[in-house]
């Protein structure tokens, strides 16, 4: 037994040495928080990996690890990729922030890219997307399409990212219907199709005829389809699951960024950067506007174009909070710092923000 074990170990060692010796191509590693098959968040990151392979062919080799839990496990997974000779590693969830920074200290020659966090280092870049721009557009569509004037919002955790989405959605809706109502249900999970479906059923039962979500599964949209209301896809185009219910989807388009960063490492021009891109550079994309009258689609396209050109900013004043206090006045807009730390609701949200 021991002999067999020794043989396996030495073989493994030999193999790993040989890959280092022969591989002058760049190894690009990816750490995913969920399964590629979630058809949402992780799926979109994996599309980025495929784009990198497509673009550089033999010059790169990609490795990925799925279903990595946020926490100590992540540190082990990242370390393993670094040991395997990865020159560039993307860690694609907020909870990988501290592990990424820690591993980066031990591997100064490896470049790291962390998604949606805020801690940088000489060899750690951060990047995220301005999903709220898309939320503003779907808010406008919701207000146009809703007969009841009530939307149901399935939320995951009360972190700024999610709160910002809720606020942007409602601000968009209020430009069409100032009395638009928003019901929020927090399910305390990123991914539990059953719970998300239950929440959707409850919201529809309470009179919402628009369903939108900040969770990762396609379940809420399927319930919308089943019960004859409409909704929006999340992170990825979910129209296959709800051909009559999906109005549009906010798509996270990581591929161009991943290709560009990989190119930078190959060219030797990589530097630690902080990227927060929206619709204009194409990091946030709206899928086809469907199941709606042409004039609503035209309005949505116009808003999209105005956001892209910078004419329109979703968080432009005047904005009031739930207590009716003015947060920002006419003609000004919230800066990125306020947006990144957002922990209050705008006026009109029918919910109390959990602490």
């Amino acid at each position, binding site marked *: 037994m021991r002999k067999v074990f020794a043989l396996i170990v030495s073989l493994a060692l030999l193999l790993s040495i040989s890959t280092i010796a022969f591989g002058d191509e760049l190894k690009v590693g990816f750490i995913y928080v*969920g*399964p*590629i*098959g*979630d*058809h949402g968040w992780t*799926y979109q990151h994996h599309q980025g990996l495929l784009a990198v392979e497509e673009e550089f062919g033999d010059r790169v080799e990609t490795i990925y690890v799925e*279903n990595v839990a946020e926490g100590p496990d992540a540190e082990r997974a990242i370390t393993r990729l670094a040991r395997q000779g990865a020159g560039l590693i993307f860690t694609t969830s907020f909870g990988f922030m501290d592990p990424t920074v820690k591993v980066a200290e031990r591997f100064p020659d490896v470049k790291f890219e962390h998604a949606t966090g805020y801690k940088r280092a000489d060899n750690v870049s951060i990047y995220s997307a301005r999903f709220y721009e898309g939320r503003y557009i779907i808010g406008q569509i919701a207000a146009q399409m809703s007969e009841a004037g009530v939307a*149901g919002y399935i939320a995951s955790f009360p972190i700024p990212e999610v709160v910002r989405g809720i606020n942007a959605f409602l601000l968009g809706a209020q430009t069409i219907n100032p009395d638009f109502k928003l*019901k*929020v*249900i*927090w*399910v*305390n*999970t990123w*991914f*539990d*199709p*059953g*719970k*998300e*479906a*239950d*929440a959707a*059923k*409850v*919201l*529809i*039962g*309470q009179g*919402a005829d628009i369903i939108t979500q900040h969770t990762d*599964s*396609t*379940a809420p949209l*399927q319930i919308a389809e089943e019960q004859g209301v409409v909704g929006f896809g999340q992170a990825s185009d979910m129209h*296959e*699951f709800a051909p009559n219910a999906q109005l549009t989807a906010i798509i996270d388009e990581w591929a161009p960024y991943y290709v560009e960063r990989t190119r930078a490492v190959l060219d030797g021009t990589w530097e630690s950067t902080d990227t927060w891109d929206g619709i204009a550079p194409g990091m946030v994309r709206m899928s086809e506007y469907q199941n709606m009258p042409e004039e609503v689609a035209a309005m949505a396209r116009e808003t999209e174009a105005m956001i892209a050109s910078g004419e329109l900013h979703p968080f432009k004043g005047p904005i009031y909070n739930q207590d009716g206090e003015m947060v920002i006045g006419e003609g000004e807009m919230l800066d990125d710092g306020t947006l990144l730390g957002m922990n209050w609701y705008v006026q009109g949200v*029918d*919910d*109390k923000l*959990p*602490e």
Partner: protein
Amino acid sequence: MTGLEAVLLTIITAATPLLLAAIGELVTERSGVLNLGVEGMMIIGAVSGFGAAYTFGSAAAGVAAAIVMGVGVALLFAYFTQTLITNQVATGLALTLFGLGLSGLIGENFTGLPLPDPAKLQRLHIPLLTDIPFIGPVVFGQDALVYASVAITVLVAWTLARTRVGLVIRATGGNHHSAHALGYRVIAVRYACIAFGGACAGLAGGYLSLVYTPQWIENMTAGRGWIALALVVFSTWAPRRVAVGAYLFGTVWIMGLYAQGAGIGIPPQLLSSLPYLATIAALVLISGNRLLTKKNTPACLGLPFVPDR
């Protein structure tokens, strides 16, 4: 559809998979075997149920596959723990991990596929009866598995309490040496009970992927197997109380969502934990009779049985 009707329908769908998985595990445990692999058997049931329903375009094929595969992995567990006498706790945990991993592998080609309509399990529609306002859709308008879960629960309760087969199962779980001395084949009885538990867990998984959210997604059981396990223990191995527990859990969970949607300012974290707290509290209260608890607890739970030759 009225508000209350929608609430009841949602509660029933939320409680059914828990009830199915728990009642199966209850039988397994009453025979003296602790199978912690419920979650694993459920997820295998979910993926094979979806796979078969999708491939053959029939809900019946899905249900059958879910049951068969549930039994299959359960028998694997039985072979290890009963024939090879491995540790039941460790083997059960391994079964859960194995199930989650294997289902991901099998399901790779099924992820992201919508189930065609004939392959979805339809709700019952009896003319006239289902059309009765309110009572109709709730009592006569469910899918077949909801009725099956109730029927299985009644059948299990009756079998355990009133039949010879039930007596043998309880004897095996209560004192396997005596049962053996009386000439009952302890290992065979346990194999059968483990298989029954697997069938129920598989069916519960199939319910998730065919009815609850008709699609296959990795990890879609999301811990429901563990809740079912806890229900069995807190109900002190009594089928009736398992049913009460499952429906109570479903009710409190859905009411929590309702409270949030209605804008009542209770922290959602508290609401999320309420179903657990309420179920534990209620079951501990109704299981307060210690004599009864002692009577129901399988004394040989988790102990290996090696017949002396």
